[in-house]
């Protein structure tokens, strides 16, 4: 496991206090369990997003066929009122959980990002709005060799 300076410091403090690793993780703001999950389902469970309802009010704009998997542009817009965050899962990546984007104080629930996509996969988006979760997915094909698909 990789360690940040924060986790090292926390680790030292925890060692002094004789604490175990599991309560330590709860202290860190970053949901390490979700980032280390090897499947989108496990990552969503770690984030408490299981059972998100399918929604047509989330728009994912990404190429149907991406020639370069290292840089796949993804635009996400949520039309669900009260959207507070957008989370992205690239299902077949080694670590599917790509990130969560939080919107506060007047930010429009839209984000553009560029992600690495290892192989053809559904890109799943989970939106949090009013304490509920909504989801949708879009298939992105990655061509290897440049002329497939």
């Amino acid at each position: 496991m990789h360690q940040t300076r924060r986790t090292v410091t926390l680790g030292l403090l925890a060692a002094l206090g004789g604490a175990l690793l599991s309560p330590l993780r709860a202290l860190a703001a970053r949901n390490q369990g979700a980032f280390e999950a090897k499947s989108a389902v496990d990552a969503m469970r770690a984030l408490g997003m299981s059972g998100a309802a399918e929604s047509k009010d989330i728009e994912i704009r990404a190429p149907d066929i991406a020639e370069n998997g290292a840089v796949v542009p993804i635009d996400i817009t949520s039309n669900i009122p009260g959207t507070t965050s957008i989370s992205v899962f690239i299902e077949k990546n080694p670590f599917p959980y790509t990130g969560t984007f939080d919107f506060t104080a007047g930010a429009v629930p839209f984000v553009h990002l560029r992600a690495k996509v290892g192989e053809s996969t559904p890109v799943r988006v989970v939106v949090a709005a009013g304490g509920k979760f909504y989801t949708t997915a879009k298939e992105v094909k990655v061509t290897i060799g440049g002329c497939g698909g």
Partner: protein
Amino acid sequence: MADPMKIRATLQGDVADVRVLMAHPMETGQRKQGGQVVPLHFIQSITATLNGKQVFSADISQAISRNPVFAFKVKGAKAGDEIAVTWKDNKGETRTDKTTVRGGS
């Protein structure tokens, strides 16, 4: 010290369209160079403020592309407002850059 970010904030009506380009290798910890695995090195968190008030934040993984680009939109911005963006990576390195919102066409 990492290179500065390029930030552009342009008004479209009362919505500021903010685009950020960060200079960062975003190593996944899976790539090999000369038989050696290049260690994980990636931006973990991003926050953005409008006139000092947080409007956007993100927790991200190593799956974001090298030299990450993000765009987001902030409502209620005016020309001359200050947008500041901060990132922090898994080695504890951090960088903040600022720009002012420019009036759109």
